């Protein structure tokens, strides 16, 4: 961990830039060694573009019902039409357009859930790891309590209590993901706290807030970033699962899990209504997990040398 022993607060602005660039180059070197990770990254960028330009890319409006085109199969199947490339659902909505708009929801869910649980987890974890004592004990017990429940079950019950819907689903998922970030941050802070550079900063007169967030935290980020990518993909999966159970995004929202829930009764009649939304979830989650594996290899110094 050679590069982590110098804290950014101790380096001048000029050298920060060059060291950051060097670090970025080093990071890219290890990240790009993993072919899967690069593919995942490019697919993820592609999804972002699709989400941003959804209104331009989608051939139809996502909730527009074409009454003359109910359960039309994809264009290559018999009876398929070129205007509905991936077919239509039971009320005549274009599946491709719904999938394109669905990208927005999935990425949005991932970003919001990961941000809430990451920021919350870091705050609570740094406090627990820095102060130790009873504060630490209380925080960790609360986290143990949350971890005692299967996460999807807890999220399901939370949403049932808060009321079904996408916002409440995201809150519930962020809450059940919280303990992982708290534990990771706490463990990293505890191991960093006694190092010489922290002691030096303390002797130089840095206050607790500066010590916690400027001196120690930047050196604890690697495992947190890896966990964040994992949470991003898990958030998409769990939100889709809640949508599938009817407790997440509500129809006619083109959220992928909700689309699957609506399609369930047609599984033996119209395979395309079920297949494509699930495939979209799988590929998205897979791309993020591929990226996560690459990030882990590039950021984990222990694995780097093996």
């Amino acid at each position, binding site marked *: 961990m050679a590069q982590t022993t110098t804290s950014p607060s101790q380096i001048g602005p000029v050298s920060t830039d060059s060291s950051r660039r060097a670090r970025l180059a080093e990071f890219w070197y290890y990240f790009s060694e993993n072919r*899967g990770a690069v593919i995942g990254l490019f697919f993820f960028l592609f999804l972002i573009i699709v989400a941003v330009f959804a209104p331009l890319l989608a051939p139809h409006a996502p909730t527009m019902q074409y009454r003359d085109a109910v359960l039309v199969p994809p264009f290559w199947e018999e009876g398929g039409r070129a205007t509905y490339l991936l077919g239509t659902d039971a009320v005549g909505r274009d599946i491709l357009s719904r999938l394109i708009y669905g990208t927005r929801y999935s990425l949005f869910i991932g970003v919001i859930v990961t941000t809430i649980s990451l920021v919350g987890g870091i705050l609570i974890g740094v406090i627990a790891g820095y102060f130790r004592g009873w504060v630490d004990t209380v925080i960790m*017990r*609360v986290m*143990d*309590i949350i971890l*005692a*429940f*299967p*996460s*999807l*079950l*807890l999220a*399901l*019950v939370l949403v*049932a*209590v808060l*009321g079904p819907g996408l916002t409440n689903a995201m809150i519930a998922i962020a809450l059940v993901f919280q303990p992982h970030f708290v534990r990771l941050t706490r463990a990293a802070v505890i191991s960093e706290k006694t190092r010489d550079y922290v002691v030096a900063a303390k002797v130089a007169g840095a206050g607790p807030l500066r010590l916690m967030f400027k001196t120690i935290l930047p050196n604890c980020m690697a495992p947190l970033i890896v966990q964040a990518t994992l949470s991003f*993909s898990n958030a998409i*999966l769990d939100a*889709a*699962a809640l949508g*599938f*159970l*009817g*407790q997440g995004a509500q129809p006619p929202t083109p959220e992928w*899990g909700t689309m*699957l829930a609506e399609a*369930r009764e047609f*599984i*033996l009649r119209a*395979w395309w209504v*079920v*297949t494509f*939304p*699930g*495939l979209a*979830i*799988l590929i998205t*989650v*897979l791309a993020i*997990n*591929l990226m996560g*594996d690459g990030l882990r290899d590039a950021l984990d110094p222990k694995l780097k040398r*093996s």
Partner: protein
Amino acid sequence: MFRFLLGRLAVLIPTFIGVSIIAFSFIRLLPGDPVMLMSGERVMTPERYAEISHRLGYDRSYIVQYLDYLWGILRGDFGTSISTKSSVLGQFFQLFPATLELSLCAIIFAVVLGIPAGVLAAIKRGSFWDQTIMGTALIGFSMPIFWWGLLLIILFSGVLQWTPVSGRISLMYFFPSVTGFMLIDSLLSGQKGAFTSALSHLILPTIVLGTIPLAVIARQTRSAMLEVLSEDYVRTARAKGLSSFRVVGIHALRNAMIPVVTTIGLQIGVMLAGAILTETIFSWPGIGKWMVDSVFRRDYPVIQGGLLIIAGMIMLVNLIVDLLYGLLNPRIRHQN
């Protein structure tokens, strides 16, 4: 070892109390009047309201109510279901064998395929096999299992017509429940075809529920094996001239299994969460479907009690895994 056990219990008991507070509080956090919700009646007179409120104990302070609830739990009283009017604990024990049977089959499926796959990927590191196995494992790990279940139904029940769509056994068969495990009960009943029917109902749910654990176990086995294979004692074993099979199968695998066993133990919680989706898709009458149905029916005593029982069970399983781990690995035992 005894001190180790005491240490774990010292953490576990406050956690369980916390879990019970959460389960207890859920119903109080709900929008709406708990008395109306609990009674399940839409219109009632003020006298009737007061009577139900008194009967349910809602006219007392929260702390008294909680202590009363806790006292009930200690005596095994987890409340009564609104919709079926039967005890929550009784329902749980009635449905739990179905989930247990499914989970056991899924874990066996995951272990039997996952460990050899992980070992193979590790010894052939970087090869075509390694890449294929790890690629497949990552796909399995990323799988939305509710969709996976639907796909398998389309293929095996729809197109090929090999397996039934839902339930535990064909309605043609009826026999008393002895163990609660359909595979064993159908054999005991001696009815022709009953076992085959039970088995064919079990195959798809087992695959669906076992997919994520399978992927996790394969990945974990591979990385544990890779770590162990670079150890000195493995090199010594090789230098002694032991066969490759002996080195990998006996010297390396035994040590690589320690983290894998922990992973398997921790998968039990994942299983119960996965059972929520798997059981819903296949209409499997277990506790996962029970919980989902209760959420739909707003059967709050069941949600409350079920949450507490499931969390308690997972905590117990984790404790057992911890103790086994401590037993296997003295370093863990003496850490604290």
